[in-house]
């Protein structure tokens, strides 16, 4: 329970259905307040905690706060920094779900003799003859199955997403019907551990390497100008590069080895192949043959038609039927068959025009020892 609308309603729905519910909040690491300014992190603040506790009291369920600060700092926050240092753009929510929420927190829940871990995610779990399916939430605009693609059959057997069968508006309506004090709360946004929602400032402060100025070059390595640090640019960005050219130039790649920002004309942004690592197939095993799927390359992207070919070592190659724009290493690539999430992984690299996959240095996604 975060103190927000979604997890509060999730808890209320379960209580209404007759489950014996235990409220839990994870106290995650967040940046200390800066100077006089108190930290503005959206999660785990005393206010959020008080809201969650109030909801739990109203529902008549116990409420506990788990201390996950150190572990979160050493895994998710460090991962965020490391990935940016490697020129990639990570999605910390995916990693948090992989390394903490549906592992550490689920284990804690199971030790409590709980049967399920329920969260306020907009997604659905369906039990079929062949196992558990992960499906999009009914509210496709809010669907969060993208950040849940790493769930295994064992995890899905112990997971509930009670708000997944409602739209956000319906969830707000339910919050009012249950009389929850959080019905009109704002959406949470951005990265929960930042003091001020400014990840650029955060990386400058917490990493020497991530924010090194370097050269802006074209695809032939021709010098065009200077950049202030690779993390501060996004693939597909055109404005704010500070270079002049006869044709519009876009960020097409980040070369972390040379700390260079690679720009090119718009048509170079469109890519048709990408390689995915750390692939999880929801059914438990990779398909025997290449499959057709709609592939999302970021949380808010629409699915693009593609052929997904499983490779050994939990990898896969995605070939889009049409070029897609803004493929960003480090983000998730998640495969869908209509509303069914088939699985997904992390974008490792993508194909340049010579047909070779451009390797980016990968760091192993194993659990780090603090």
């Amino acid at each position, binding site marked *: 329970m975060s103190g927000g609308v979604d997890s509060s309603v999730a808890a209320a729905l379960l209580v209404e259905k007759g489950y014996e519910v*235990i409220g839990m*909040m*994870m*106290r995650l690491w967040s940046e200390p307040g800066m100077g006089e300014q108190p930290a503005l992190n959206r999660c*785990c603040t*005393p206010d959020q*905690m008080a809201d969650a506790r109030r909801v739990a009291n109203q529902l008549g369920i*116990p409420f*506990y*706060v*788990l*201390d996950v*600060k150190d*572990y979160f700092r050493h895994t998710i926050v460090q991962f965020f920094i490391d990935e940016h240092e490697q020129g990639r753009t990570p999605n910390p929510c995916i990693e948090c779900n992989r390394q903490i929420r549906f*592992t*550490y927190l689920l*284990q*804690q829940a199971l*030790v*409590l*003799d709980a049967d399920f871990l329920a969260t306020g995610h907009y997604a659905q779990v369906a039990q079929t003859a062949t196992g558990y399916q992960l499906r999009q939430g009914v509210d496709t605009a809010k669907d969060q199955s993208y950040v849940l693609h790493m769930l295994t059959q064992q995890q899905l057997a112990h997971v509930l997403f009670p708000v997944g069968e409602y739209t956000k508006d319906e969830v707000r309506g339910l919050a009012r019907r249950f009389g929850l004090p959080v019905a009109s709360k704002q959406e949470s946004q951005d990265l929960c551990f930042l003091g001020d929602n400014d990840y650029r400032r955060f990386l400058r402060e917490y990493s020497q390497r991530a924010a090194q100025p370097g050269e802006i070059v074209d695809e032939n390595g021709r010098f065009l100008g200077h950049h202030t640090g690779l993390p501060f640019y996004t693939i597909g960005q055109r404005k704010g590069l500070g270079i002049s050219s006869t044709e519009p130039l876009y960020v097409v790649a980040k070369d972390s080895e040379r700390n260079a920002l690679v720009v090119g004309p718009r048509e170079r942004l469109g890519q048709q192949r990408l390689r995915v690592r750390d692939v999880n197939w929801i059914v438990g095993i990779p398909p025997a043959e290449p499959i057709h799927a709609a592939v999302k390359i970021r949380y808010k992207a629409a699915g693009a038609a593609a052929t997904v070919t499983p490779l050994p070592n939990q990898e896969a190659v995605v070939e889009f039927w049409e070029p897609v724009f803004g493929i960003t290493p480090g983000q998730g690539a998640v495969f869908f068959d209509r509303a069914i999430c088939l699985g997904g992984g992390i974008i490792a690299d993508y194909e340049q025009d010579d047909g070779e996959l451009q390797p980016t240095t990968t760091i192993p996604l194993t*659990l780090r*020892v*603090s």
Partner: protein
Amino acid sequence: MQKQRIYLDNGASTQLDRQVLQVMLPFWTETYGNSSSHHSFGRQAEQALEEARTTVAKLLGAAASEEIVFTGCGSESDNLAVRGAMWAARAHGKGNHLITSCIEHSAVGQTAVSLHTHHGFDLTILPVDHSGQVRPADLEAAIRPDTVLVSIMAANNEIGTLQPIDELGAIAHAYGALFHTDAVQAVAVQRWQLAQQPIDLLSVAPHKFYGPKGMGMLYVRQGVELQPELTGGSHENGLRAGTVNVPFAVGAAKALELAMADLPETVAHYQRLRDRLIEGVLTAVPDNAILTGHPTHRLPHNASFAFRHLSGNDLLMHLDMAGIAASSGSACKSGDPKPSAVLEALGLGREWTKGGLRLTVGRHNTMDEIEQVVATLPRLVAKLQKIHVMFA
């Protein structure tokens, strides 16, 4: 389905004794006068109040009933003793130095720090040995001609270690300093002869021994000067302004009377349960648990442990869900547990100091309950150790 619950947090608070409740009841609806009033209603209340005061004074072996001051809680008693003694000394130009220990309850510890930081009093904080005891030699070395007050708790609330307060008090007196002891945990599990003991100030909280919350007492030896914290009327010998809470004072006296009446039996009961807890837990968790505090010189109702690499916070949650109420020195409802300062003071390393657990038995606990805890706790510890190994 309501699980059977086991309350092992009697060090935090206890169930009000029904006999105590009975003697308190008339003082809300029948004998409700203000004990300071000049009429029959007031006199009735005053009589009950003074009887309560006399009872407490006798049970503690005080020289006179006026030596007992009723306050609002144990923390207030500590504040009145420590602040009151230091400010009175300053008012009379009698010295500026305060000595306390590093494992005091925050009611003393934070008060001492506040006096030092905001008001310029000199402060010495004594260390403790591995068992949690203050070494008398350390006090001898720290005490000075301008030392006003030495404040050392009678028993630590977290680890249960008893302090050699008679020895420490004698040292304070030898140097002309006052001696205060926070006896909130210890007062009802041992006998007192305060008139003969080197103790000038002693704090009591009746809700720790089946009395009411919202009531504290402070023993103030005759002749000891305190400056009041709460000013106004001349209640409580001018030491604590405010209408006296007569029902709670009556209840406090009754609670202490009941505690002292059954003392040997009660202590024997506590010790039997406590020793089984200690033996059962240490046997079942041989490598990853230690007993914290003094092995023998400890409160009869306190079994305190540290578990390696565990979060006491998490352990409390799992125990609570298993129906077992306990506490931890580093527990915190906001999920931001700090290592226990007491466990750090014992010299324990980081792998132990967040893993403190305190089980405090009470009158109502049975050996059956203790056996259930001895069966449950090691099982939870083993599961949490497994999670620790997976996610460290």
